[in-house]
């Protein structure tokens, strides 16, 4: 059979390939630099008198302890990690520099020439691998180790960590060595340069850590990149009117009632996926609420000493891991649900594969969460089964590997279903893009395996952000775009050609900024200045497609308008809430990812801000606002077909939608954004160390603001998550019977010719059936 021709010019495919190849070539060079230009880990750190202070093994042991004890979900190193505890790099640098200044008889608030000399002079000998500390620095090491001993020995009620999390002197020595090494890299000048390995981060006047010229220059240039990019985009829109969302010309569609659309056995299994998804969502929000409570009331949880069994770092670990799990579950289910609609068929046995995938997913989720608890409670340090400890990649390596295998298994399932359709399609058409965007999900998640707790910390951060940024912000975004476009094609709202052009346009726009833009997370992680420069410049371009979204939102919304009116005669538009969730995705994408993301994107802002509530403000508004809302929207779309019409709980869907959005707006504007602003102001005017102090965050005004979040969280969980869980439960209870013919409905609508509008009689079968002809 002849293949269907490319629906758009092949130039789109070529442009996309060029952009991706260019982006990944640059990223490849930056990866090489991550290995060659990172701060060295000395074989031996000695005092001027020749005493060994600590060794390379101590540093790596300390790093592993930091990760596997869950301390990265409590505090941070190089600004990356949790936000309740201190940034341990800044903390060490402050305590050590004050100690050294005092010893030298210099100002404890401003330092002095001898203090600066001690910290900024790079005494690392590349030939021997030996780093020499001054006697004052050596004494400071002992001083900080004693501080850490006291800090970790405190009862849990004072820190939010479990009691005695690290009380072995050997462990404390190793941990201090790791923090001490990171602080050395933060202040010692790179050979031949006037700034440190971390581009002078963190801000610390005592050792003359001030923003570098590059941080300011590249901040300005990134603003220019943004302005120029937006101008180019609008110019392109003016020149080529065909860009963007355009509805079917003058056609009105009559949607088939969901109850009349036949379901395949595989599609019916997705009811269980969505139930698991919503249950994970509920648990995620509950542990999120608990972790947030620590900031309002560190000492107890309404009279219960929560930290003794559910310490802050465990709650935050679960909160973040579950956010990935529940969103991924929805995406998996949506892929399984939509694939037969794309292909017009489902192979036999798909149902059993789907059940196997769901079972494996549950095993990975439960196994990894238990492993994380075991690691954080100190019951096991097994790297494969317990806590690996990287923020976002906390799960043990076995679970990580199984998840990758499971995701590839899902892609294989999609391949089975799509194969006949792919066989008759050109490589650049929608079904192939659907498949490739799905394939990118396991492929880029698998890269997280390159981050190992005993690798160089700067290198592990590099690979970790391939997952946190490239996987989430680029390839999930790509899958999202393809999925939304396909939903609209299936619903007949846009012609496939229009959707395809738009997918390419967004793919190119996201890739231009997003691939190299990965480096905007790594301004101060020990990479060379080129990481900061390219990261700042390219990531500014990431905001351009989000600006484009606001322009396109109008066309996008108009698409549904005519259809909405047409279907009013037959009853309510069946996908009202799915569509509203997509509207919410657009809104939060612009606000959460665009505005709140760009707010912290400039190197000069990030220099003072990294690790404050402005980061979690961006994280919540974009992760929940975009992927969370999309996951809920996909569930609404699919479950609407699974539940018989008469059982569809319209009011609960409405309650869930409004509560999730109101609750999210509340948590952002009542707590995260104002606290972030206050922290930023404190960081600039007083000091970064002061802005990150646990005591500052958990007492006084900030603690009160945290309490103000409670109503929003109650609305979010009680009004948003619970109804969604109930709706998904109805999907399992009342799932409609399968169509055992093996076929499925690819046409979810019929077109109504202009003269027949009033009669709403179906005239032409459309959708995939038409395209295959």
């Amino acid at each position, binding site marked *: 059979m002849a293949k269907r021709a490319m629906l758009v010019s092949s130039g789109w495919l070529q442009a996309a390939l060029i952009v991706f190849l260019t982006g990944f070539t640059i990223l490849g060079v930056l990866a090489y630099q991550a290995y060659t230009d990172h701060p060295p880990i000395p074989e031996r750190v000695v005092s001027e008198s020749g005493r060994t202070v600590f060794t390379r093994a101590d540093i790596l042991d300390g790093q592993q302890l930091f990760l596997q004890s869950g301390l990265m979900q409590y505090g941070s190193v190089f600004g990356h990690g949790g936000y309740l505890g201190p940034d341990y790099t800044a903390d060490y640098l402050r305590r050590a520099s004050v100690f050294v200044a005092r010893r030298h008889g210099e100002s404890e608030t401003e330092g002095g020439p001898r203090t600066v000399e001690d910290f900024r002079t790079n005494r690392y000998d590349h030939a021997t691998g030996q780093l020499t500390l001054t006697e004052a620095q050596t004494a400071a090491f002992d001083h900080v180790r004693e501080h850490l001993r006291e800090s970790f020995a405190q009862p849990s009620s004072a820190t939010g960590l479990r009691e005695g999390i690290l009380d072995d002197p050997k462990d404390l020595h190793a941990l201090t060595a790791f923090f001490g090494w990171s602080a050395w890299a933060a202040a010692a000048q790179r050979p031949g340069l006037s700034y440190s390995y971390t581009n002078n981060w963190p801000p610390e006047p005592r050792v003359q850590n001030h923003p570098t010229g590059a941080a300011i220059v590249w901040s300005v240039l990134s603003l220019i990149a943004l302005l120029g990019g937006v101008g180019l985009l609008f110019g392109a829109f003016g020149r080529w009117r065909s860009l963007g969302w355009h509805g079917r010309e003058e056609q009105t569609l009559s949607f088939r009632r969901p109850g009349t659309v036949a379901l395949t056995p595989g599609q019916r299994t997705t009811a269980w996926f969505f139930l698991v998804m919503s249950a994970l969502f509920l648990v995620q929000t509950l542990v999120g609420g608990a972790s947030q409570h620590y900031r309002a009331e560190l000492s107890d949880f309404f009279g219960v000493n929560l930290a003794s069994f559910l310490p802050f770092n465990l709650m935050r670990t679960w909160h973040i891991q579950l956010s990935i799990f529940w969103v991924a579950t929805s995406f998996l289910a949506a892929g399984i649900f939509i694939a037969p609609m794309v292909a017009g068929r489902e192979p036999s046995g798909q149902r059993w594969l789907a059940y196997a995938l769901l079972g494996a997913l549950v095993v990975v989720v439960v196994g990894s969460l238990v492993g994380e608890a075991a690691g954080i409670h100190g019951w096991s340090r097994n790297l494969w089964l317990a806590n690996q400890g990287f923020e976002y990649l906390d799960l043990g390596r076995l679970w990580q590997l199984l998840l990758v295998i499971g995701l590839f298994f899902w892609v294989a399932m999609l391949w089975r279903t799509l194969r006949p359709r792919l066989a008759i399609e050109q490589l650049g058409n929608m079904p192939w893009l659907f498949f490739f965007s799905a394939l990118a999900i396991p492929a880029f998640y698998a890269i997280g395996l390159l981050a190992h707790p005993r690798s160089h910390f700067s290198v592990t951060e590099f690979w970790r952000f391939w997952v946190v940024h490239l996987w989430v912000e680029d390839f999930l975004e790509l899958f999202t775009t393809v999925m939304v476009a396909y939903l609209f094609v299936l619903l007949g709202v846009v012609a496939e050609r229009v959707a395809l052009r738009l997918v390419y346009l967004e793919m190119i726009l996201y890739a231009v900024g997003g691939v190299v833009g990965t480096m905007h997370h790594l301004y101060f992680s020990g990479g060379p200045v080129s990481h900061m420069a390219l990261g700042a410049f390219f990531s500014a371009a990431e905001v351009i497609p989000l600006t484009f979204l606001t322009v396109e939102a*109008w066309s996008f*919304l*108009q698409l*549904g*308008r*005519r259809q*909405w*009116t047409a279907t*009013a005669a037959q009853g309510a*538009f069946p996908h*009202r809430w799915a*569509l*509203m969730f997509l*509207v*919410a995705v657009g*809104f939060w994408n612009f606000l959460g990812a665009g505005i709140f993301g760009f707010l912290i994107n400039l190197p000069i802002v990030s220099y003072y801000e990294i690790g404050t509530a402005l980061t979690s403000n961006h994280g919540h508004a974009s992760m929940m606002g975009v992927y969370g809302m999309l996951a809920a929207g996909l569930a609404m779309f699919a479950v609407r077909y699974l539940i018989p019409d008469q059982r569809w709980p319209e009011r609960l869907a409405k309650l869930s939608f*409004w509560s999730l*959005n*109101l*609750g999210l*707006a*509340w948590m*952002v*504007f*009542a*707590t995260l954004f*104002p606290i972030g*602003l206050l922290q930023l102001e404190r960081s600039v005017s007083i000091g970064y160390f002061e802005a990150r102090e646990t005591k500052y965050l958990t007492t*006084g*005004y900030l603690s*009160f*603001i945290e*309490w*103000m979040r409670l*109503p*929003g969280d109650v609305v979010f969980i009680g009004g948003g998550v619970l109804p969604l869980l109930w709706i998904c439960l109805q999907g399992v209870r009342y799932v409609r019977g399968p169509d055992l013919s093996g076929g499925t409905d690819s046409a979810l609508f019929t077109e109504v010719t202009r003269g027949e509008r009033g009669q709403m009689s179906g005239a032409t079968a459309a959708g995939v059936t038409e395209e295959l002809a």
Partner: protein
Amino acid sequence: MTGLGPVLAAAAYAGLLWLVALLLDAIGRRSLRPRDGRAEGMAIGSDVARFHRVIGGGVLGAGAFVLAAHVVVRRDAPALLLLPLVAACLAGSARRVVPLWREP
């Protein structure tokens, strides 16, 4: 910051939130306008308008709580100047969110 400084900062934050809410109102109103001269299909337009208004209501509600926190924590005379702003934020929030229960 001492004296009137924190109060002014809180008032400025409330001002920012009002700006956000009014901007969202304007965006919502725009979605109600017929396009291409056709007055058809207000259903989704009104849902989108409602979305922006309700989110604006949530923003103002959050603002009211933040300002109230400020008044309660400070408990000084300058902070009391924020009470009218708290009331205005609450009223603005209620106007935007409460109709949700009456509408389809």
